[in-house]
């Protein structure tokens, strides 16, 4: 494709994203009750997590080398890539669970637009994600303020990029597991389990056994979504930081390969 063609395609997709996001937001106003319940659910979950952390720190003052405010920062920071990812890729859950099994996935194949884009566009700007982002920012801000965190200019510049990479990692993991449904019809349990593992990225990795740490760093790199960036911002540790872009790119490539192979293989069942 020529440079001009590529630019035109990019412009077209940007326009479509803009338009479809508007549609999503409009839809939000229609289903207020659902949104409120979703927000409530999310707040309940985060609230419970915060309670657990508070209760743990009632008993001790440091775990794994992190104190209360630092753990709070980690927890809040872990919500940022999750919120950003969820803003665009929530439809993947539907793919994992339903679309292949019911045969309705075909809808994304008959449009003159990239199927992955069409699939995700169904749930652009998913409202729950805003809650996650807002709560994450709130908690991170509070914790940073409480420990009087001073960031260097470099850290300030890198922070949003770190969040972005984290979001790409999460999106890739989600896409990878959701794509498994092209082979196994329903990969929701697998996706859910992978998500469960991610839930705990909000705690310091130092607590865990080496093999588990290895799993969370190199197999399902949740460590790079929260722990590595947070330890950089809080302690200035740069040990694993250079690996971050590498892991992000590799995982994204893997996820897209799985997606393409899966779509290629897709056969619409049912009459």
């Amino acid at each position, binding site marked *: 494709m020529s440079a001009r063609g590529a630019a035109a395609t990019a412009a077209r997709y940007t326009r479509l994203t803009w338009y479809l996001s508007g549609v999503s937001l409009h839809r939000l106003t229609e289903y207020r009750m*659902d949104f409120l*319940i979703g927000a409530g659910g999310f707040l309940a979950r985060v609230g419970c997590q915060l309670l657990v952390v508070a209760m743990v720190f009632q008993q001790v003052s440091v*775990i794994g080398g992190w104190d209360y405010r630092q753990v709070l920062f980690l927890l809040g920071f872990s919500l940022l890539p999750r919120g950003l990812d969820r803003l665009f890729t929530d439809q993947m859950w539907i793919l994992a669970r339903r679309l292949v099994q019911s045969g309705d996935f075909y809808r994304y194949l008959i449009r003159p637009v990239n199927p992955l884009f069409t699939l995700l566009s169904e749930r652009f700007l998913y409202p729950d994600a805003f809650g996650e982002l807002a709560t994450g920012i709130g908690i991170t801000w509070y914790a940073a303020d409480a420990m009087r965190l001073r960031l260097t200019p470099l850290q300030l510049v890198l922070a949003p990029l770190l969040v972005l990479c984290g979001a790409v990692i999460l999106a890739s993991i989600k896409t990878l597991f959701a794509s498994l449904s092209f082979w196994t019809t329903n990969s929701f349990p697998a996706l859910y389990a992978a998500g469960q593992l991610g839930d705990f990225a909000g*705690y310091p990795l130092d607590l865990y056994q080496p093999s588990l740490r290895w799993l969370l760093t190199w197999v399902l790199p949740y460590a790079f979504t929260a722990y590595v960036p947070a330890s950089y911002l809080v302690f200035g540790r740069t040990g694993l930081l250079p690996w971050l872009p590498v892991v992000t790119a590799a995982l994204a490539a893997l996820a897209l390969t799985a997606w393409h192979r899966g779509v290629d293989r897709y056969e619409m069942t049912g009459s």
Partner: protein
Amino acid sequence: MSAATGLAGLRRYTPFAVGSLQTMLRYRSTFVVNAVTATTAVSLQVFLWRAVYNGDSGSGPGGFDRAGITTYVLLAQVLGLLHANRVDEEVSGEIQRGDIAVSLIRPVSYPLTRFCAGVPVSLVNVALVGGPVVLLYAGLLPLQRPGVGGVLLFTASSLLAMVIAFEVNLLVGLAGFATTNIWGIRIVKDCVVALLAGQVVPISLMPGPLAGAARLLPFAGLVDSPLRLLLGEYRGAGAAAGILAGQAAWTGAMTLLTALAWRRAVRRVEVLGG
């Protein structure tokens, strides 16, 4: 109703249990995945709390020592498996699709059929997933060994807990009449109930007011009661009986509540047609 008719009546419900087993066999991968989830959940909890209980000897906060807290956390997750019986999902699904109207035509009690379908799921979950996880951890870490009496009390208590959990799930499922976003309600239920049951943090470790509230609610019967009975976290036989009695009372109350909720649901279906 004589015993014979009663028994014959119960036989009408066995197909639901069998059907549930068949469905589970078809989706075998779910078990592997559940095992992964359970193992990770346990690992993370265990590591978190073992970091708190750093001293190896003597008892720490809440009267637990290291082995005790490890055992507690491990078994709390296994109990969580016992309570995860998909009833909330299935019931809300049927309501959304309108299939529940059909269930009213059948000559069986819907809540009872759901219970019969849910029990195999719970038991298989515990056996196939919980079993290996417990064995894995028993091999790796020192656990507190319970006494025979403790095990007996635990079994009785777990049965009651299973019933309460089923009823909570059924109530959540019935919320499908009120909203389409059952997912959100389930998340609230999962976190809040787990917290108040003592699955995430032992109730004895909670700050005063929260612990007090938790002890007043039925959810404590889900995890806290069975584990306290197992690990001997009580003083004297009277206290043990008290714990069981409290559970039984809540089981009765929840059953009543569920029956009422179901009655209202039926009325609503009759009026609106599903």
